[in-house]
């Protein structure tokens, strides 16, 4: 029951994210490179979420748990890596932007970088660790 509720909430949030992205793309007009890049990261996050949800639904259909002790440990580890990535992106994003592009990032750009890099690191670590075994 708890697993099914989690999956239902996950599907709802993913659907809302997809609708939001579609509205943004339809109303954005011509997108520039600095707008396409964060959009790509969000799309990667959505695709990864769909994969994780599909994997859980597949297990539930077979009568197996959606998440077990190994995946919980995987989840904790991926959270840790995502947290580290968030901290370093808060430091690194303004530095890299200043050094390589001679452009000073505003506060909300740095916040976006922290959220996106943290999220993408979490997803990549989670999928990699879930596949690799530890």
């Amino acid at each position, binding site marked *: 029951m708890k697993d099914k509720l989690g999956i239902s909430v996950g599907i709802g949030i993913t659907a809302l994210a997809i609708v939001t992205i579609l509205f943004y793309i339809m109303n954005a007009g011509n997108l520039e490179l600095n707008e396409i890049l964060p959009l790509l990261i969000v799309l990667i996050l959505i695709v990864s979420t769909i994969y994780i949800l599909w994997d859980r639904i597949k*297990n539930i259909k*077979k*009568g*197996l*748990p959606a*998440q*077990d*002790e*190994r*995946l919980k440990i995987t989840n904790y580890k991926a959270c840790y890596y995502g947290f580290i990535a968030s901290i370093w992106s808060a430091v690194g994003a303004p530095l890299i932007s200043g050094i390589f592009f001679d452009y000073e990032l505003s506060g909300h750009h740095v916040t976006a970088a922290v959220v996106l890099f943290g999220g993408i690191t979490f997803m990549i670590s989670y999928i990699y660790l*879930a596949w*690799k*075994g*530890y």
Partner: protein
Amino acid sequence: MKTRIKELRARYDLTQEDLARKVGVRRETILFIEKGKYNPSLKLAYDIAKALNATIEELFIFDEG
């Protein structure tokens, strides 16, 4: 750490999925335990041993080196 899970599974004609269902974990978890890529919790090790009518010592061979 080496395990004899695969050997005992074969004795009882159980697939990884059957064993996973018996002990309440995902199939991949059984796969990774068999490959030595995941060390199960004491509870899971006990549940697997019980499902295969063996003791934990019979199932898991600890390499002390």
